[in-house]
Protein backbone atom coordinates (compact mmCIF):
# COMPACT_ATOMS: atom_id res chain seq x y z
CA UNK A 1 0.00 0.00 0.00
CA UNK A 2 2.78 2.32 0.89
CA UNK A 3 4.52 1.36 -2.29
CA UNK A 4 1.52 2.50 -4.33
CA UNK A 5 1.57 5.82 -2.57
CA UNK A 6 5.22 6.30 -3.38
CA UNK A 7 4.52 5.38 -6.99
CA UNK A 8 1.67 7.89 -7.14
CA UNK A 9 3.85 10.67 -5.77
CA UNK A 10 6.60 9.96 -8.26
CA UNK A 11 4.07 9.90 -11.09
CA UNK A 12 2.74 13.31 -10.10
CA UNK A 13 6.28 14.66 -9.90
CA UNK A 14 6.94 13.25 -13.35
CA UNK A 15 3.93 14.98 -14.86
CA UNK A 16 4.94 18.28 -13.25
CA UNK A 17 8.38 17.94 -14.77
CA UNK A 18 6.90 17.60 -18.22
CA UNK A 19 4.53 20.57 -18.21
CA UNK A 20 7.10 23.15 -19.37
CA UNK A 21 7.83 20.94 -22.37
CA UNK A 22 4.37 21.41 -23.80
CA UNK A 23 4.91 24.86 -25.30
CA UNK A 24 4.45 25.36 -29.01
CA UNK A 25 5.26 27.83 -31.76
CA UNK A 26 3.50 31.16 -32.35
CA UNK A 27 1.98 33.31 -35.08
CA UNK A 28 1.93 32.15 -38.66
CA UNK A 29 3.34 28.74 -37.96
CA UNK A 30 1.20 26.57 -35.76
CA UNK A 31 3.31 23.45 -35.70
CA UNK A 32 6.84 22.51 -36.63
CA UNK A 33 8.70 19.24 -36.47
CA UNK A 34 11.47 17.20 -38.00
CA UNK A 35 10.37 14.79 -40.68
CA UNK A 36 12.61 12.25 -42.32
CA UNK A 37 16.38 12.53 -42.04
CA UNK A 38 16.64 15.72 -44.10
CA UNK A 39 13.18 17.23 -43.69
CA UNK A 40 11.49 19.87 -41.61
CA UNK A 41 7.70 19.98 -41.69
CA UNK A 42 5.92 23.28 -41.03
CA UNK A 43 2.20 23.68 -40.48
CA UNK A 44 0.63 27.13 -41.04
CA UNK A 45 -2.24 28.53 -39.04
CA UNK A 46 -3.83 29.90 -42.21
CA UNK A 47 -3.75 29.04 -45.88
CA UNK A 48 -0.85 30.57 -47.80
CA UNK A 49 0.00 31.21 -51.41
CA UNK A 50 1.31 27.89 -52.73
CA UNK A 51 3.69 29.46 -55.23
CA UNK A 52 5.23 31.56 -52.47
CA UNK A 53 5.39 28.62 -50.12
CA UNK A 54 7.31 26.62 -52.71
CA UNK A 55 9.92 29.36 -53.12
CA UNK A 56 13.09 28.13 -51.44
CA UNK A 57 14.47 31.63 -50.95
CA UNK A 58 11.65 32.45 -48.53
CA UNK A 59 13.15 30.18 -45.93
CA UNK A 60 16.38 30.38 -44.08
CA UNK A 61 17.34 27.62 -41.70
CA UNK A 62 20.23 27.60 -39.25
CA UNK A 63 21.35 25.57 -36.28
CA UNK A 64 21.00 27.62 -33.13
CA UNK A 65 24.67 27.35 -32.13
CA UNK A 66 25.92 28.16 -35.63
CA UNK A 67 23.93 31.21 -36.74
CA UNK A 68 26.36 31.99 -39.56
CA UNK A 69 25.92 28.74 -41.45
CA UNK A 70 22.74 28.57 -43.55
CA UNK A 71 21.65 25.05 -44.27
CA UNK A 72 21.14 24.48 -47.98
CA UNK A 73 17.56 23.76 -49.03
CA UNK A 74 16.92 21.42 -51.93
CA UNK A 75 13.20 22.14 -52.27
CA UNK A 76 10.10 23.28 -50.41
CA UNK A 77 6.99 21.27 -51.13
CA UNK A 78 3.62 22.70 -50.04
CA UNK A 79 1.00 20.15 -49.11
CA UNK A 80 -2.26 19.74 -51.00
CA UNK A 81 -4.46 21.96 -48.90
CA UNK A 82 -1.89 24.75 -48.79
CA UNK A 83 -1.59 25.01 -45.03
CA UNK A 84 1.73 23.30 -44.66
CA UNK A 85 5.10 22.86 -46.29
CA UNK A 86 7.85 20.29 -46.18
CA UNK A 87 11.39 21.61 -46.47
CA UNK A 88 13.89 19.23 -48.01
CA UNK A 89 17.57 19.79 -47.31
CA UNK A 90 20.60 18.75 -49.30
CA UNK A 91 22.34 17.29 -46.27
CA UNK A 92 20.82 15.23 -43.48
CA UNK A 93 19.98 17.35 -40.44
CA UNK A 94 21.47 16.91 -37.03
CA UNK A 95 18.18 16.52 -35.22
CA UNK A 96 19.82 16.58 -31.80
CA UNK A 97 20.40 20.33 -32.23
CA UNK A 98 17.79 23.06 -32.20
CA UNK A 99 17.17 24.50 -35.66
CA UNK A 100 15.91 28.03 -36.24
CA UNK A 101 13.66 28.54 -39.27
CA UNK A 102 13.01 32.06 -40.52
CA UNK A 103 10.06 32.38 -42.91
CA UNK A 104 9.55 35.60 -44.88
CA UNK A 105 7.13 36.89 -47.56
CA UNK A 106 4.43 34.39 -46.74
CA UNK A 107 2.09 36.66 -44.78
CA UNK A 108 2.90 40.19 -45.75
CA UNK A 109 6.32 41.53 -44.90
CA UNK A 110 6.44 39.98 -41.47
CA UNK A 111 9.26 37.58 -40.76
CA UNK A 112 8.33 34.62 -38.65
CA UNK A 113 10.99 32.86 -36.64
CA UNK A 114 10.38 29.45 -35.13
CA UNK A 115 12.63 26.99 -33.42
CA UNK A 116 12.48 23.37 -34.42
CA UNK A 117 13.71 20.80 -32.00
CA UNK A 118 12.92 17.31 -30.98
CA UNK A 119 10.15 17.24 -28.40
CA UNK A 120 11.72 18.10 -25.06
CA UNK A 121 9.55 15.49 -23.46
CA UNK A 122 11.11 12.87 -25.68
CA UNK A 123 14.57 14.09 -24.79
CA UNK A 124 13.85 13.88 -21.07
CA UNK A 125 12.36 10.45 -21.56
CA UNK A 126 15.44 9.35 -23.46
CA UNK A 127 17.60 10.34 -20.47
CA UNK A 128 15.39 8.22 -18.26
CA UNK A 129 15.51 5.23 -20.59
CA UNK A 130 19.23 5.63 -21.03
CA UNK A 131 19.92 5.57 -17.29
CA UNK A 132 17.40 2.77 -16.76
CA UNK A 133 18.36 0.33 -19.51
CA UNK A 134 21.03 1.39 -21.98
CA UNK A 135 23.50 2.65 -19.42
CA UNK A 136 22.13 0.70 -16.49
CA UNK A 137 24.33 1.67 -13.57
CA UNK A 138 24.83 -1.87 -12.35
CA UNK A 139 25.13 -3.88 -15.54
CA UNK A 140 26.82 -1.49 -17.96
CA UNK A 141 28.51 1.06 -15.72
CA UNK A 142 29.50 -1.39 -12.96
CA UNK A 143 28.62 0.87 -10.07
CA UNK A 144 27.09 0.04 -6.73
CA UNK A 145 28.20 -3.58 -6.87
CA UNK A 146 28.91 -4.08 -3.16
CA UNK A 147 25.38 -3.22 -2.15
CA UNK A 148 24.04 -4.97 -5.23
CA UNK A 149 25.54 -8.33 -4.30
CA UNK A 150 24.78 -7.80 -0.62
CA UNK A 151 21.06 -7.14 -0.94
CA UNK A 152 19.99 -9.26 -3.90
CA UNK A 153 19.40 -12.51 -2.07
CA UNK A 154 15.66 -12.13 -1.55
CA UNK A 155 12.99 -10.35 -3.55
CA UNK A 156 11.49 -8.44 -0.62
CA UNK A 157 14.90 -7.09 0.41
CA UNK A 158 15.61 -6.14 -3.17
CA UNK A 159 12.39 -4.19 -3.53
CA UNK A 160 12.83 -2.37 -0.24
CA UNK A 161 16.40 -1.43 -0.98
CA UNK A 162 15.55 -0.31 -4.51
CA UNK A 163 12.70 1.96 -3.45
CA UNK A 164 14.57 3.56 -0.54
CA UNK A 165 17.55 4.03 -2.78
CA UNK A 166 15.55 5.71 -5.54
CA UNK A 167 13.97 8.13 -3.09
CA UNK A 168 17.26 9.13 -1.49
CA UNK A 169 18.85 9.36 -4.92
CA UNK A 170 16.27 11.76 -6.32
CA UNK A 171 16.30 13.94 -3.21
CA UNK A 172 20.09 14.17 -2.99
CA UNK A 173 20.51 14.71 -6.73
CA UNK A 174 18.08 17.64 -6.63
CA UNK A 175 19.91 19.21 -3.68
CA UNK A 176 23.24 18.63 -5.37
CA UNK A 177 21.95 20.40 -8.44
CA UNK A 178 21.01 23.48 -6.44
CA UNK A 179 24.31 23.53 -4.59
CA UNK A 180 26.31 22.98 -7.75
CA UNK A 181 24.58 25.66 -9.78
CA UNK A 182 24.08 28.32 -7.13
CA UNK A 183 27.15 27.90 -4.93
CA UNK A 184 29.93 25.89 -6.52
CA UNK A 185 29.85 27.38 -10.03
CA UNK A 186 29.34 31.08 -9.12
CA UNK A 187 32.20 31.02 -6.60
CA UNK A 188 34.48 28.87 -8.73
CA UNK A 189 34.64 26.13 -6.12
CA UNK A 190 34.32 23.20 -8.49
CA UNK A 191 37.11 21.33 -6.78
CA UNK A 192 34.97 20.93 -3.67
CA UNK A 193 32.33 18.95 -5.54
CA UNK A 194 33.20 15.55 -4.06
CA UNK A 195 33.01 16.81 -0.49
CA UNK A 196 29.80 18.73 -1.08
CA UNK A 197 28.04 15.88 -2.87
CA UNK A 198 28.96 13.22 -0.33
CA UNK A 199 27.97 15.60 2.45
CA UNK A 200 24.58 16.17 0.85
CA UNK A 201 24.04 12.43 0.48
CA UNK A 202 24.76 11.83 4.17
CA UNK A 203 22.49 14.72 5.03
CA UNK A 204 19.64 13.32 2.94
CA UNK A 205 20.02 9.90 4.46
CA UNK A 206 19.98 11.38 7.94
CA UNK A 207 16.94 13.50 7.12
CA UNK A 208 14.99 10.62 5.59
CA UNK A 209 15.90 8.52 8.61
CA UNK A 210 14.61 11.10 11.08
CA UNK A 211 11.47 11.96 9.14
CA UNK A 212 10.53 8.36 8.46
CA UNK A 213 11.04 7.42 12.10
CA UNK A 214 8.61 10.13 13.22
CA UNK A 215 6.04 10.06 10.43
CA UNK A 216 5.69 6.40 9.61
CA UNK A 217 7.34 4.04 12.10
CA UNK A 218 5.94 0.95 10.33
CA UNK A 219 7.57 1.92 7.06
CA UNK A 220 10.74 2.74 8.96
CA UNK A 221 10.84 -0.71 10.51
CA UNK A 222 10.76 -2.36 7.12
CA UNK A 223 12.95 0.08 5.19
CA UNK A 224 15.15 1.75 7.82
CA UNK A 225 17.89 -0.87 7.68
CA UNK A 226 18.64 -0.09 4.05
CA UNK A 227 19.24 3.59 4.69
CA UNK A 228 22.70 3.01 6.12
CA UNK A 229 23.67 0.96 3.09
CA UNK A 230 22.77 3.80 0.76
CA UNK A 231 25.82 5.88 1.75
CA UNK A 232 28.17 3.04 0.86
CA UNK A 233 26.78 2.89 -2.69
CA UNK A 234 28.79 4.58 -5.38
CA UNK A 235 25.78 5.15 -7.63
CA UNK A 236 24.51 7.77 -5.25
CA UNK A 237 27.62 9.88 -5.68
CA UNK A 238 28.03 9.03 -9.37
CA UNK A 239 24.74 10.69 -10.31
CA UNK A 240 25.62 14.19 -9.02
CA UNK A 241 29.07 13.85 -10.56
CA UNK A 242 27.54 13.00 -13.92
CA UNK A 243 25.13 15.89 -13.53
CA UNK A 244 28.09 18.21 -12.94
CA UNK A 245 30.01 16.77 -15.88
CA UNK A 246 27.15 17.08 -18.37
CA UNK A 247 25.79 20.38 -17.00
CA UNK A 248 22.28 18.98 -16.81
CA UNK A 249 19.35 21.23 -15.93
CA UNK A 250 16.91 20.53 -13.13
CA UNK A 251 14.54 18.33 -15.13
CA UNK A 252 17.34 16.39 -16.73
CA UNK A 253 18.90 15.80 -13.33
CA UNK A 254 15.58 14.58 -12.01
CA UNK A 255 15.20 12.12 -14.87
CA UNK A 256 18.77 10.92 -14.52
CA UNK A 257 18.34 10.29 -10.80
CA UNK A 258 15.01 8.57 -11.36
CA UNK A 259 16.48 6.42 -14.12
CA UNK A 260 19.52 5.53 -12.05
CA UNK A 261 17.39 4.57 -9.06
CA UNK A 262 14.91 2.69 -11.20
CA UNK A 263 17.74 0.89 -12.97
CA UNK A 264 19.19 -0.14 -9.63
CA UNK A 265 15.80 -1.40 -8.51
CA UNK A 266 15.40 -3.33 -11.76
CA UNK A 267 18.85 -4.88 -11.45
CA UNK A 268 18.25 -5.86 -7.83
CA UNK A 269 14.88 -7.38 -8.67
CA UNK A 270 16.21 -9.40 -11.60
CA UNK A 271 19.16 -10.62 -9.61
CA UNK A 272 17.10 -11.56 -6.56
CA UNK A 273 14.70 -13.55 -8.72
CA UNK A 274 17.61 -15.59 -9.98
CA UNK A 275 19.13 -15.91 -6.51
CA UNK A 276 15.91 -17.35 -5.10
CA UNK A 277 15.93 -19.98 -7.80
CA UNK A 278 19.60 -20.69 -7.34
CA UNK A 279 19.07 -21.83 -3.79
CA UNK A 280 17.57 -25.01 -5.20
CA UNK A 281 20.25 -25.55 -7.81
CA UNK A 282 23.22 -27.81 -7.44
CA UNK A 283 26.21 -25.51 -7.49
CA UNK A 284 29.79 -26.80 -7.27
CA UNK A 285 31.18 -26.00 -3.81
CA UNK A 286 33.88 -23.72 -5.21
CA UNK A 287 31.28 -21.55 -6.91
CA UNK A 288 28.93 -21.21 -3.93
CA UNK A 289 28.16 -17.70 -2.78
CA UNK A 290 29.73 -14.78 -4.58
CA UNK A 291 31.42 -16.50 -7.56
CA UNK A 292 28.15 -17.79 -9.00
CA UNK A 293 26.49 -14.44 -8.31
CA UNK A 294 29.20 -12.77 -10.36
CA UNK A 295 28.72 -15.19 -13.24
CA UNK A 296 24.97 -14.54 -13.23
CA UNK A 297 25.57 -10.79 -13.13
CA UNK A 298 27.92 -11.19 -16.07
CA UNK A 299 25.19 -12.89 -18.05
CA UNK A 300 22.79 -10.09 -17.19
CA UNK A 301 25.42 -7.59 -18.29
CA UNK A 302 25.72 -9.33 -21.64
CA UNK A 303 21.96 -9.29 -22.02
CA UNK A 304 21.91 -5.58 -21.23
CA UNK A 305 24.47 -4.97 -23.96
CA UNK A 306 21.58 -5.72 -26.29
CA UNK A 307 19.93 -2.46 -25.26
CA UNK A 308 22.87 -0.44 -26.54
CA UNK A 309 22.03 1.72 -29.50
CA UNK A 310 18.37 1.70 -28.52
CA UNK A 311 16.78 4.94 -29.64
CA UNK A 312 13.17 5.74 -29.05
CA UNK A 313 13.06 9.46 -29.74
Amino acid at each position, binding site marked *: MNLTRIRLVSLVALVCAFIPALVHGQGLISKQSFGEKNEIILKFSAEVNKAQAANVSNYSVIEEQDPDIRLELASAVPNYSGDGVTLHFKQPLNTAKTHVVTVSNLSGDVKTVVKVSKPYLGYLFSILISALLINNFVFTKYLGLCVFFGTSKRKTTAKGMGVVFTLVMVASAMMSWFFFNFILIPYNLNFLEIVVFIGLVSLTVQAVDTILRKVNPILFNSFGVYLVLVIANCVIIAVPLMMANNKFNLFETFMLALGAGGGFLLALYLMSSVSERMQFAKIPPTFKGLPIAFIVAGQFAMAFLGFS*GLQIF
Partner: protein
Amino acid sequence: MKNIITIIIRLTLSCLLAAFVMGIFFVMTSKAKKHNEHVNEEKVMYSLLGYKVGAPVPETVKLYAVYRYIVTDPAGKSIGYLVPTGQGAETGFSFIILDLDGKLIEQKPVTVTADDAAEAESRDKAIKAALGAGKEAVYADDKTIIVTDNGARTAYLLSGKFAGFKASISVMLALKTDFGIRGLAIVEHEEDPGLGAEIEKGYFKNQFIGKSFATLKTLDVVKEPLPDAYAKAMEGVKGEDGGKILEQYKDHAIYALTGATISSRAVTNGVKGTVAKFAYRINILDNVLKEQHIVVPF
Protein backbone atom coordinates in the same frame (compact mmCIF):
# COMPACT_ATOMS: atom_id res chain seq x y z
CA MET B 1 23.07 21.21 24.58
CA LYS B 2 26.71 21.58 25.47
CA ASN B 3 27.32 18.40 23.55
CA ILE B 4 25.73 19.77 20.42
CA ILE B 5 27.78 22.93 20.58
CA THR B 6 31.05 21.01 20.90
CA ILE B 7 30.03 18.79 18.00
CA ILE B 8 29.21 21.78 15.85
CA ILE B 9 32.45 23.55 16.72
CA ARG B 10 34.53 20.48 16.03
CA LEU B 11 32.79 19.72 12.76
CA THR B 12 33.25 23.30 11.60
CA LEU B 13 36.91 23.17 12.54
CA SER B 14 37.50 19.94 10.67
CA CYS B 15 35.62 21.27 7.66
CA LEU B 16 37.80 24.36 7.66
CA LEU B 17 40.92 22.22 7.95
CA ALA B 18 39.78 19.99 5.09
CA ALA B 19 38.94 22.98 2.92
CA PHE B 20 42.36 24.41 3.70
CA VAL B 21 44.14 21.21 2.61
CA MET B 22 42.07 20.99 -0.57
CA GLY B 23 42.61 24.65 -1.33
CA ILE B 24 46.40 24.27 -1.02
CA PHE B 25 46.40 21.33 -3.42
CA PHE B 26 44.08 23.13 -5.79
CA VAL B 27 46.42 26.08 -6.02
CA MET B 28 49.41 23.77 -6.36
CA THR B 29 47.96 21.62 -9.11
CA SER B 30 45.93 24.03 -11.18
CA LYS B 31 49.00 25.58 -12.78
CA ALA B 32 50.61 22.24 -13.55
CA LYS B 33 47.31 21.02 -14.96
CA LYS B 34 47.07 23.90 -17.38
CA HIS B 35 50.69 23.50 -18.36
CA ASN B 36 50.35 19.75 -18.97
CA GLU B 37 47.18 20.20 -20.98
CA HIS B 38 48.95 22.72 -23.12
CA VAL B 39 51.97 20.43 -23.63
CA ASN B 40 49.70 17.53 -24.48
CA GLU B 41 47.75 19.56 -27.00
CA GLU B 42 50.95 20.70 -28.64
CA LYS B 43 52.22 17.14 -28.83
CA VAL B 44 49.06 16.00 -30.58
CA MET B 45 49.21 18.96 -32.95
CA TYR B 46 52.81 18.42 -33.99
CA SER B 47 52.40 14.68 -34.41
CA LEU B 48 49.38 15.32 -36.64
CA LEU B 49 51.49 17.61 -38.76
CA GLY B 50 54.06 14.88 -39.10
CA TYR B 51 56.76 16.12 -36.72
CA LYS B 52 58.11 13.40 -34.49
CA VAL B 53 58.20 13.81 -30.73
CA GLY B 54 61.54 15.21 -29.74
CA ALA B 55 62.59 16.23 -33.23
CA PRO B 56 62.88 20.00 -33.54
CA VAL B 57 60.22 21.78 -35.54
CA PRO B 58 61.74 23.97 -38.28
CA GLU B 59 61.82 27.63 -37.35
CA THR B 60 60.02 28.65 -40.50
CA VAL B 61 56.90 26.82 -39.32
CA LYS B 62 54.54 29.08 -37.40
CA LEU B 63 51.17 28.46 -35.83
CA TYR B 64 48.46 31.13 -35.66
CA ALA B 65 45.26 30.65 -33.70
CA VAL B 66 41.90 32.07 -34.72
CA TYR B 67 39.11 32.11 -32.13
CA ARG B 68 35.46 32.35 -33.02
CA TYR B 69 32.94 34.24 -30.90
CA ILE B 70 29.24 34.79 -31.14
CA VAL B 71 28.49 38.49 -30.71
CA THR B 72 25.08 39.55 -29.47
CA ASP B 73 23.82 43.11 -29.58
CA PRO B 74 20.30 44.60 -29.69
CA ALA B 75 20.23 44.25 -33.50
CA GLY B 76 20.77 40.51 -33.38
CA LYS B 77 23.55 38.02 -33.61
CA SER B 78 26.80 38.28 -35.49
CA ILE B 79 30.03 36.34 -35.62
CA GLY B 80 33.35 37.59 -34.35
CA TYR B 81 36.82 36.25 -35.06
CA LEU B 82 39.90 37.10 -33.07
CA VAL B 83 42.74 37.01 -35.59
CA PRO B 84 46.39 37.96 -35.39
CA THR B 85 47.11 40.85 -37.74
CA GLY B 86 50.14 42.51 -39.27
CA GLN B 87 53.29 41.00 -40.57
CA GLY B 88 56.87 40.92 -39.40
CA ALA B 89 57.59 43.05 -36.34
CA GLU B 90 54.27 44.89 -36.26
CA THR B 91 51.89 42.25 -35.05
CA GLY B 92 48.77 42.60 -33.02
CA PHE B 93 45.29 41.21 -32.71
CA SER B 94 42.03 42.28 -34.26
CA PHE B 95 38.47 41.35 -33.55
CA ILE B 96 36.61 41.07 -36.84
CA ILE B 97 32.83 41.11 -36.66
CA LEU B 98 30.88 39.66 -39.57
CA ASP B 99 27.14 39.60 -40.07
CA LEU B 100 25.36 36.35 -40.74
CA ASP B 101 25.74 36.77 -44.49
CA GLY B 102 29.47 37.05 -44.21
CA LYS B 103 29.82 40.83 -44.67
CA LEU B 104 32.17 42.81 -42.50
CA ILE B 105 30.46 44.91 -39.84
CA GLU B 106 33.53 46.28 -38.12
CA GLN B 107 37.10 45.58 -37.24
CA LYS B 108 38.39 46.46 -33.79
CA PRO B 109 41.98 46.26 -32.67
CA VAL B 110 42.43 44.26 -29.48
CA THR B 111 45.29 45.00 -27.15
CA VAL B 112 46.40 41.64 -25.86
CA THR B 113 49.69 39.77 -25.76
CA ALA B 114 50.04 36.45 -27.55
CA ASP B 115 50.22 34.56 -24.25
CA ASP B 116 47.13 36.25 -22.90
CA ALA B 117 45.25 35.51 -26.12
CA ALA B 118 45.84 31.81 -25.57
CA GLU B 119 44.17 31.97 -22.14
CA ALA B 120 40.38 31.90 -22.29
CA GLU B 121 39.89 34.26 -19.36
CA SER B 122 42.28 37.02 -20.31
CA ARG B 123 41.22 36.76 -23.94
CA ASP B 124 37.56 37.25 -23.09
CA LYS B 125 38.45 40.23 -20.96
CA ALA B 126 40.52 41.88 -23.69
CA ILE B 127 37.75 41.39 -26.25
CA LYS B 128 35.18 42.78 -23.88
CA ALA B 129 37.31 45.87 -23.38
CA ALA B 130 37.74 46.30 -27.13
CA LEU B 131 34.04 45.94 -27.88
CA GLY B 132 32.82 48.40 -25.30
CA ALA B 133 29.35 48.43 -23.83
CA GLY B 134 26.24 47.17 -25.57
CA LYS B 135 27.83 44.19 -27.25
CA GLU B 136 28.45 40.85 -25.74
CA ALA B 137 30.82 38.26 -27.15
CA VAL B 138 30.61 34.63 -26.12
CA TYR B 139 33.36 32.22 -27.07
CA ALA B 140 31.91 29.55 -29.35
CA ASP B 141 34.48 26.99 -28.18
CA ASP B 142 35.95 26.97 -31.65
CA LYS B 143 39.65 27.44 -32.13
CA THR B 144 41.38 26.96 -35.44
CA ILE B 145 45.10 26.92 -35.89
CA ILE B 146 46.54 27.96 -39.21
CA VAL B 147 49.97 26.55 -39.92
CA THR B 148 52.35 28.43 -42.15
CA ASP B 149 55.76 27.56 -43.47
CA ASN B 150 57.77 30.53 -44.70
CA GLY B 151 54.62 32.64 -44.68
CA ALA B 152 52.66 30.27 -46.91
CA ARG B 153 49.75 28.29 -45.53
CA THR B 154 50.46 24.57 -45.26
CA ALA B 155 47.76 23.18 -43.03
CA TYR B 156 44.85 23.83 -40.69
CA LEU B 157 44.41 22.27 -37.28
CA LEU B 158 40.95 22.21 -35.84
CA SER B 159 39.28 20.48 -32.95
CA GLY B 160 35.83 18.99 -33.00
CA LYS B 161 33.51 17.55 -30.40
CA PHE B 162 30.48 15.44 -31.16
CA ALA B 163 28.27 12.81 -29.59
CA GLY B 164 29.67 9.30 -29.58
CA PHE B 165 28.06 6.09 -28.49
CA LYS B 166 28.28 6.71 -24.76
CA ALA B 167 29.60 10.20 -24.15
CA SER B 168 31.02 12.83 -26.45
CA ILE B 169 34.13 12.27 -28.54
CA SER B 170 36.75 15.01 -28.94
CA VAL B 171 39.00 14.90 -31.95
CA MET B 172 41.70 17.00 -33.49
CA LEU B 173 41.97 17.21 -37.26
CA ALA B 174 44.76 18.31 -39.52
CA LEU B 175 43.60 19.51 -42.93
CA LYS B 176 45.49 20.34 -46.08
CA THR B 177 44.89 23.74 -47.61
CA ASP B 178 42.34 22.17 -49.98
CA PHE B 179 40.46 20.76 -46.91
CA GLY B 180 41.54 17.19 -47.61
CA ILE B 181 42.31 15.32 -44.39
CA ARG B 182 45.91 15.10 -43.34
CA GLY B 183 45.48 13.44 -39.99
CA LEU B 184 42.99 12.61 -37.28
CA ALA B 185 43.63 12.16 -33.57
CA ILE B 186 41.03 11.05 -31.03
CA VAL B 187 41.67 13.25 -28.02
CA GLU B 188 39.00 12.11 -25.62
CA HIS B 189 36.30 9.45 -25.65
CA GLU B 190 34.46 7.11 -23.32
CA GLU B 191 33.63 4.25 -25.67
CA ASP B 192 33.66 0.62 -24.55
CA PRO B 193 37.08 -1.01 -24.41
CA GLY B 194 37.47 -3.69 -27.07
CA LEU B 195 34.60 -2.28 -29.11
CA GLY B 196 34.10 1.44 -29.61
CA ALA B 197 37.44 2.31 -27.99
CA GLU B 198 39.14 0.92 -31.09
CA ILE B 199 38.41 4.25 -32.79
CA GLU B 200 41.70 5.51 -31.41
CA LYS B 201 43.64 2.70 -33.08
CA GLY B 202 45.56 3.42 -36.27
CA TYR B 203 43.63 0.96 -38.39
CA PHE B 204 40.44 2.92 -37.88
CA LYS B 205 41.39 6.56 -37.59
CA ASN B 206 44.01 6.44 -40.34
CA GLN B 207 41.29 5.48 -42.80
CA PHE B 208 40.45 9.18 -42.88
CA ILE B 209 43.91 10.23 -44.03
CA GLY B 210 43.99 11.24 -47.66
CA LYS B 211 40.24 11.64 -48.05
CA SER B 212 39.70 14.69 -50.22
CA PHE B 213 37.12 17.36 -49.47
CA ALA B 214 34.87 16.10 -52.28
CA THR B 215 35.08 12.49 -51.08
CA LEU B 216 34.42 13.57 -47.55
CA LYS B 217 31.13 15.22 -48.47
CA THR B 218 29.60 11.88 -49.48
CA LEU B 219 31.68 9.65 -47.24
CA ASP B 220 29.79 6.62 -46.02
CA VAL B 221 30.40 3.83 -43.51
CA VAL B 222 30.30 0.25 -44.73
CA LYS B 223 29.96 -2.90 -42.64
CA GLU B 224 32.56 -4.95 -44.47
CA PRO B 225 35.66 -6.68 -43.15
CA LEU B 226 38.69 -4.44 -43.33
CA PRO B 227 41.17 -5.80 -45.94
CA ASP B 228 44.26 -7.12 -44.20
CA ALA B 229 46.77 -5.39 -46.46
CA TYR B 230 45.05 -2.04 -45.90
CA ALA B 231 45.03 -2.48 -42.12
CA LYS B 232 48.75 -3.26 -42.12
CA ALA B 233 49.55 -0.31 -44.36
CA MET B 234 47.66 2.00 -42.00
CA GLU B 235 49.30 0.64 -38.87
CA GLY B 236 52.59 1.65 -40.43
CA VAL B 237 53.93 -1.89 -40.86
CA LYS B 238 56.64 -1.45 -43.46
CA GLY B 239 55.61 -3.23 -46.62
CA GLU B 240 56.80 -2.99 -50.19
CA ASP B 241 53.75 -1.24 -51.49
CA GLY B 242 52.22 0.37 -48.40
CA GLY B 243 51.90 3.67 -50.19
CA LYS B 244 50.23 2.04 -53.16
CA ILE B 245 47.67 0.30 -50.97
CA LEU B 246 46.84 3.50 -49.17
CA GLU B 247 46.41 5.20 -52.53
CA GLN B 248 44.12 2.41 -53.69
CA TYR B 249 41.71 2.86 -50.78
CA LYS B 250 41.94 6.64 -50.83
CA ASP B 251 38.34 7.23 -51.88
CA HIS B 252 36.85 4.14 -50.29
CA ALA B 253 34.12 4.38 -47.68
CA ILE B 254 35.09 3.99 -44.02
CA TYR B 255 35.16 0.37 -42.86
CA ALA B 256 33.12 0.16 -39.67
CA LEU B 257 34.68 -1.39 -36.58
CA THR B 258 33.37 -4.83 -35.78
CA GLY B 259 30.69 -4.53 -33.15
CA ALA B 260 30.96 -0.76 -32.99
CA THR B 261 29.09 0.54 -36.02
CA ILE B 262 27.51 3.35 -34.03
CA SER B 263 30.87 4.64 -32.81
CA SER B 264 32.32 4.39 -36.34
CA ARG B 265 29.37 6.26 -37.78
CA ALA B 266 29.56 8.89 -35.05
CA VAL B 267 33.21 9.62 -35.81
CA THR B 268 32.64 9.70 -39.57
CA ASN B 269 29.66 12.02 -39.37
CA GLY B 270 31.39 14.16 -36.76
CA VAL B 271 34.47 14.60 -38.91
CA LYS B 272 32.31 15.36 -41.95
CA GLY B 273 30.34 18.00 -40.10
CA THR B 274 33.40 19.59 -38.51
CA VAL B 275 35.24 19.89 -41.81
CA ALA B 276 32.21 21.16 -43.72
CA LYS B 277 31.54 23.91 -41.19
CA PHE B 278 35.17 24.88 -41.04
CA ALA B 279 35.55 25.07 -44.82
CA TYR B 280 32.47 27.28 -45.05
CA ARG B 281 33.72 29.66 -42.39
CA ILE B 282 37.33 29.94 -43.43
CA ASN B 283 36.26 30.79 -46.99
CA ILE B 284 34.09 33.63 -45.72
CA LEU B 285 36.81 34.90 -43.42
CA ASP B 286 39.42 34.75 -46.17
CA ASN B 287 37.15 36.67 -48.54
CA VAL B 288 36.60 39.41 -46.00
CA LEU B 289 40.28 39.67 -45.17
CA LYS B 290 41.07 39.96 -48.86
CA GLU B 291 38.35 42.47 -49.69
CA GLN B 292 39.13 44.71 -46.75
CA HIS B 293 42.90 44.45 -47.26
CA ILE B 294 43.46 43.34 -43.69
CA VAL B 295 47.04 42.19 -43.41
CA VAL B 296 47.38 38.89 -41.62
CA PRO B 297 50.49 36.82 -41.04
CA PHE B 298 48.94 33.65 -42.46
